[in-house]
């Protein structure tokens, strides 16, 4: 489905995840973060950049991998995105929801 955000029409699925990463830009990220009650800091952006790079490399994301990312440890990750961290972070980053159970 289509969604108007930050002055742009983007494609999202029924859970609100973007389905075309090429449509993502920082302004959209900002708006998606607001919708999820997250105020983005430099650390958030650094992490978003990291998970986008992992997505581009087609490397599946897990909580363990985030902990070893060198960007944040797991405690810091939960502090940045307190509710459903990986789900929220991927949504803001404009990439699909991780499919794994860990």
């Amino acid at each position: 489905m289509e969604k108007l955000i930050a002055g742009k029409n983007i494609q999202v699925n029924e859970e609100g995840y973007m389905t075309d990463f090429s449509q993502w830009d920082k302004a959209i990220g900002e708006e998606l973060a607001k919708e999820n009650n997250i105020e983005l800091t430099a650390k958030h952006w650094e992490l978003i950049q990291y998970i986008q790079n992992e997505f581009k490399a087609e490397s599946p994301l897990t909580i363990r991998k985030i902990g070893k990312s060198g960007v944040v440890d797991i405690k810091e990750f939960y502090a940045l995105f307190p509710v459903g961290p990986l789900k929220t972070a991927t949504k803001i980053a404009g990439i699909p929801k991780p499919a794994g159970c860990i």
Partner: protein
Amino acid sequence: MSEYNGEVRKMMIILSKASLENVYAAFVLANGARMEGIEAEMFFTFFGLEAIHNKKLEHLHVATVGNPAMHMPTMIGGLPGMEALATNLMKKEMEKLDMPEVREFLEILQASGVKLWACKLAMEMFHYEKEDMFPGLDGVLTVGDFYKQGSGIGTHMLFI
């Protein structure tokens, strides 16, 4: 059911066994809860205490006897080395899925805000002290204390 629309808000997971498949099931469920924004607490009782015992948690095995789903005759499952063999095979498969080892998994759970409790009665039965256990343990509780931890709407309890 009307409040929170029947949503799960908190999982209270009781682990009473320490065969590797049960320990991992409990850990994945606890971690999965946190990843969904659900609170999670774990209560380790009876043999489940082995999963948080500092000297034992790295030596847990898959059960090869009394487990029909292993599709292995009980007599063969009981041969020396079979448990170690099955455990190694399972660990290899789990590594492929980026599943951490038991100690690292406990550290992940702790960092994710999962509360880890040991059962007071079982601790006394096995003559364990808090110092013998995983350092991230939040405390030793009675059953009553654990139930109190789970109070509130939207809490679910699970016994493994």
